[in-house]
Structure formats: C-alpha cells, structure tokens
C-alpha cells in the first residue's frame, strides 16, 4: 500500500484547549494530497501546468477517535493513505490520519472533483477527468470504476431542533486562496462563528454551551457552490439533541445570482 508519512512537530497554533483545531486538520487535506501525489504520481504545480488539471473539494469527513491534547506528545505523524481515483479519474478520494505511538487521534477523508483547465491562462475550467498519462501512474487498486457515495449524515426522523439561529458573514481576502475563491478550510470556521453566536446569546439553552467546551466527535462538510472574496452570505443553524450528543447543522446560503446553498456543515459533540 503506497502511503506517505510526514512528521509534524506540535506547536501552539495547531491546538485549542479541547483538541487539535478542525481548521488545522482540514488544512492537512491538501498537504497530504500534494505530498502523496508528488511522491507517486505528479507534483501539484506540474499537474496544473502540464496536465491542465486541478481539483476542487466536494466533501470532507473528520473524526476524532480519542482525546489528544497539546501536551500529550512532542510531534505526531501525518499518515496519508493511497489516493483512489473513481469513475475513470472523475472523483478522487483520500484518507489521512494523525497518529501518535501507533494510535490515530484524528482522521479525515476527502472527496474531490477533477477539473480540466480549458485555456492557457487558467480563466476557464470545467469538471473532467485525470489525463490518461496521470491515471497510468496509479496502481490497479487505486483505480476504482464505481463512483463513491456522497457521505453526509442524515438527521433522525422526527427530531426537532432545540435551538435555531442565523449568522451573517462576509468572505474576507485572508479566507481565500490564490484565485480569490473561499478556502474550504475556513468553511468550518464560519460554522464555528455561527455556533458561538448561538451558544453565547443571552438566555440560550445551556446545553448549547457544550458546543464551546466539549471536543468534537465528528464533522462532515459538503461544499456545493463556491463563494468568492467579499461575497456575503448567512448561516442558518439548527441544533438537535441526538441521544447523548449535540448535533449542529449549519447551512450557508446566499442570494448571489439566485437563492442557493453554498455549503452544509454537520458538527457532532458529546453533550
């Protein structure tokens, strides 16, 4: 199995008081992908420049199998599992794990869509497939014909929200990547702002504060329409008590062009 392992020294920027920060875990998606691709297939700049292909992330799932804090080690290993190309290279899936002493304390998987650049200047792109010259560098087990199922949680039927709220925000330049499109990493941070606003509101249900003090169990993100620098949107949040867990469902919507959903975030905490 073709994997890549990178040692990550622990520093204060990576952690909050509860656990490793979600945005940092999400940030390892592209680090891991670029490292794995460079070692086994093709480096990211070359993929874009020579093969005129790139990726946009569609879905992410993050889970935290055990508690792990800032003082628990001096470093951890970012273990990147093999990339799997589905549907003749239309969708790419990859899992990565944060590991200490052989135990996984955080793991994430991402589904990305391949886009093909249609001109030299990179002004135009459309969904496509990895070029055959790139696909040939993948091993047979890394090429899978069926497309993966979209992996987003569903709410148990008849579950009523214990709280709802709305939070508005603007996409700032420091939250964007090179093409001034929002960076997927910050979508979770926008959801966090919505959660904080609801939990800190005067008279809020005290159960909501679990969203501030408890570690995450898991987070699922689906990115459906990109936003760009200085776009504004609102986050519609619903909170559910699901057994012993607190489930936060955030939907980012705007009226840019037409009413549409840009992303959905499911956060699960122990209540």
């Amino acid at each position: 199995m073709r994997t890549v392992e990178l040692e990550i020294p622990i520093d204060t920027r990576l952690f909050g008081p509860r656990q490793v920060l979600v945005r940092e875990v999400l940030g390892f998606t592209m680090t891991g992908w670029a490292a794995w691709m460079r070692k086994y297939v093709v480096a990211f700049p070359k993929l874009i420049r020579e093969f005129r292909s790139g990726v946009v992330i569609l879905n992410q799932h993050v889970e935290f199998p055990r508690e792990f804090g800032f003082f628990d080690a001096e470093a951890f290993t970012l273990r990147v599992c093999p990339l799997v190309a589905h549907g003749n290279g239309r969708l790419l899936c990859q899992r990565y794990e944060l590991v200490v002493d052989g135990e996984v304390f955080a793991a994430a998987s991402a589904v990305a869509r391949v886009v093909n650049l249609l001109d030299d200047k990179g002004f135009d792109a459309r969904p496509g497939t990895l070029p055959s010259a790139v696909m040939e560098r993948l091993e047979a087990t890394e090429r899978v014909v069926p497309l993966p199922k979209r992996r987003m949680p569903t709410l148990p039927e008849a579950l009523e929200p214990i709280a709802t709220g709305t939070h508005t925000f603007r996409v700032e330049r420091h939250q964007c990547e090179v093409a001034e499109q929002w960076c997927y990493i910050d979508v979770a941070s926008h959801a966090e702002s919505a959660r904080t606003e609801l939990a800190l509101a005067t008279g809020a249900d005290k159960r909501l504060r679990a969203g501030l003090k408890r570690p995450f169990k898991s987070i699922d993100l689906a990115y459906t329409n990109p936003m760009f620098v200085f776009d504004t949107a609102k986050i519609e949040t619903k909170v559910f008590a699901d057994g012993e867990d607190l489930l936060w469902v955030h939907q980012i919507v705007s009226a840019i062009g037409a009413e549409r959903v840009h992303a959905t975030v499911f956060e699960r905490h122990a209540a």
Partner: protein
Amino acid sequence: MKVRFSGTLLRAVDYEREIELDAPTLGVAFDQLLQRFPQLRTPLLDDGGAVRSIHRLFLNREQLEPDTDLAAMNIGARDTLDVITALAGG
C-alpha cells in the same frame, strides 16, 4: 439596469460590485462594460466572444441558458444581471 459581479471577475471591474448602466439590450450593456473595463474582456469572454462556460448569468434571479442570444435581449432600467463564477466545490 444594474450588473452585479462576484468571484474572479470582481478584480477586473476594480471591485465595483454593482454597476449602473443605461442600455437597451444586454449586447449594448456588455459593450459599455468592456469599454469602461477593457481588462474584463479576457476573463469574461472566450476567443469567439462568447461568455466563458465557467460563468453563469442570472437576469432578475433567473438563470439564462448558455445558448441565449444576449446581444439581442432587451432589458429595462429595473433589470438586474448577476454574473457569477460557478464551479462546485471548496
């Protein structure tokens, strides 16, 4: 009419998100825009002069089909055209 920009085109219109134009058709509106912002031409239009497929046009919140004859489409002072970049993902 109003033309609103978002996404990668915003830089090409000097970050002016909403632009007022006095034009009888979308064709004239585009001519006025390109005269005012010549740097908009390359990111907005392909070599054949058509709107690049990465962009979507919404007239009064209704998406225009890619084969719409924009040049001949009549517009009024109260119409709003949104030009957005559309590529799913994060």
